[in-house]
């Protein structure tokens, strides 16, 4: 859960940046770069492309703040995630229409690194990483809206309320999609190859 004091400070930092203190934006950048970047990587599945999109996201955020298009009522992280998500989805759609040939094609999950596991045994560590990649591949097979909620809640750490605002659905719908996402993951793990169940609101 994000620290409430941090959120109050976010508003102050944005205000200071608007008043001309560029250091304030730097603090925000360092605070949230991991979450924003992770969100983009999980959508586009390519770290190089994600870095370009991450740059585009932050530059666009700055332009919008300076142009007076940042709504102080909204929180900073969900606002930036929305920009990142839109840019990443636009890229993904263009890529699907005109796929680019890459010099170093990446495997499905090779773009991912996992947080350090507690296993000291290298063998166990390898198994743990393989399991993680497997689960991520299953997440990728979820229905789009369920995957989106799961990614935003679990990896971007947005609240269900923020997700519901971002995706223009009720909180109950967002919770329902998350519930179905987890249920479907379990079904897929238990019966490998089983088709995921779509919720009524999907």
């Amino acid at each position, binding site marked *: 859960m994000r620290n409430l004091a941090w959120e109050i400070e976010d508003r102050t930092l944005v205000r200071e940046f608007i008043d001309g203190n560029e250091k304030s934006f730097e603090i925000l950048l360092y605070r949230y770069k991991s979450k924003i970047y992770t969100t983009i990587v999980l959508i586009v599945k390519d770290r190089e492309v994600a870095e370009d999109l991450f740059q585009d996201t932050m530059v666009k955020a700055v332009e919008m703040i300076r142009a007076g298009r940042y709504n102080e009522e909204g929180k900073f992280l969900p606002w930036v995630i929305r920009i990142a998500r839109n840019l990443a989805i636009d890229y993904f759609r263009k890529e699907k229409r005109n796929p680019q040939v890459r010099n170093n094609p990446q495997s499905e999950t090779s773009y991912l*690194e996992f947080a350090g596991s507690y296993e000291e045994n290298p063998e166990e560590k390898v198994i743990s990483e393989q399991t993680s990649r497997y689960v991520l591949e299953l997440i990728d097979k979820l229905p789009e809206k369920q995957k989106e909620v799961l990614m935003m809640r679990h990896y971007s750490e947005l609240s269900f309320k923020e997700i519901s605002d971002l995706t223009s659905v009720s909180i109950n719908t967002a*919770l329902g999609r998350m*519930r179905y996402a987890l249920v479907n993951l379990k079904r897929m793990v238990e019966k490998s190859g089983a088709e995921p169940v779509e919720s009524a609101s999907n």
Partner: protein
Amino acid sequence: MKQIYSESDILRFLYDEMPREESERFVDELVNNQSLWNLFEEIKEIHDSLPEINLEPSDICVASILNKINETPQPVKKANRFSSVLSYGLPGLLTLIGVVSVVFFTNDFKSKSAPEISNYWNITDTHQKIQGLKTRLESTGDQYWVARKIYGNAYLLTENSSGATKMVSGIVNK
């Protein structure tokens, strides 16, 4: 009425989005409700199996962003009519208000220092000859009130606008 908890409530609890009081009631229910506990364990198991992913952009990427932000010029703030009024009109308005206040205050003070005898009962020359009365009458705007204060319930010897008079008793002795 006993609350019935759903899978959505379990998710809110797992992701720390339940208010504290509700969390405490939820935990009480978990302990005493086996079917809720089974459901909670099932969802928690899947939740715990989700791998941790914590990716960082490269330092070059971050540096590039900061360079671009510093290069992008700050837009010149457009002077809008409202801000122009505030910056130029307000001091003028305040000055005008100050001048008008001074004028009114001065006039008002003058009128108080030299009050006109406009009350119904006029003070006669006889009263004014009594020592100190004239001074007191001049220092206050309410001459009639001063006269009544000095003479108590005595009537003033006055002549009102229609020529009627009232006798003052004991005024000379006082």
